[in-house]
């Protein structure tokens, strides 16, 4: 095999590469032949030492494919990252907003019923003014009892709100750390 045949065979096996890269490779081997012949070797001897152009092409193509996998896996990494961000956003809606709404509902209903209980005698008296016939001593004492319960409930809600708020803030911090931790991976 002479220089021409060697380069032609190599070129044939590298058809999948870009022209620029292929020419660069061929240039390297041309240089190798040129230096070799200038040192007194024949083209055949040089081709013999180089080995099969098919084998050389195989090794070159292996690098090419490996590179392709690497670049595509980095693209998929980007997709993974984007998906992770979207996923985390959704995760936050479910994990943070859900409990938040639940807790707010509990607190609001607690405060509302506490308040309603506390002012129930007032409401009862208003009712009597509108409909005097509905007055009963039992109901009056019952509403007074409710007032006590309502005041207790309001005091309880005050502490409960403080406690739950603190807890929720801590949960939020934990969640943010979780999100940050997830992004690191």
């Amino acid at each position, binding site marked *: 095999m002479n220089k021409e045949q060697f380069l032609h065979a190599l070129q044939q096996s590298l058809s999948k590469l870009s022209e620029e890269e292929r020419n660069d490779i061929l240039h*390297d*081997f041309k240089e*190798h032949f040129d230096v070799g012949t200038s040192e007194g070797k024949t083209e055949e001897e040089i081709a013999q030492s180089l080995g099969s152009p098919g084998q*050389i092409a195989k*090794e070159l193509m292996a690098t090419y494919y490996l590179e392709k996998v690497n670049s595509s896996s980095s693209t998929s990494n980007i997709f993974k990252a984007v998906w992770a961000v979207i996923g985390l956003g959704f995760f936050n809606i479910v994990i943070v907003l859900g409990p938040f709404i639940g807790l707010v509902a509990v607190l609001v209903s607690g405060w509302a019923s506490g308040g309603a209980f506390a002012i129930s005698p007032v409401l009862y008296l208003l009712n009597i003014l509108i409909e005097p016939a509905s007055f009963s001593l039992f109901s009056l004492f019952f509403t007074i009892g409710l007032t006590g319960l309502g005041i207790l409930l309001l005091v309880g809600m005050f502490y409960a709100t403080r406690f739950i708020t603190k807890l929720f803030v801590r949960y939020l911090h934990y969640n943010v750390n979780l999100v940050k931790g997830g992004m690191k991976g």
Partner: protein
Amino acid sequence: MNIQFKKGALELCVLVLLNKQDHYGYELVQRISDQIAISEGSVYPLLRRLKKEGYLTTYLQESTEGPSRKYYQLTDMGRIHMHSLMKEWHHFAAGVQSILKEGGQDE
């Protein structure tokens, strides 16, 4: 000899030779093939891979006879890579050596 094994050794040889001084392709191939029996052509795919991985750079330099030649130069990253490969190689070679010694005692 196992091809992967040979390739690993070849990579180390290329890095060590370039650590000493820059070489152009032909020169580098001859330096190696003087010592080890290889298909000389396989050095070029290796050089391209090492360049893509950032371990080598190339530059063109005029030669006294004929056209300019492509020289290969080791990068800092390549030097670090060489040192870690050398460490691995010594570890590997020492392991093989001690096993060979044990086997030799029985014969």
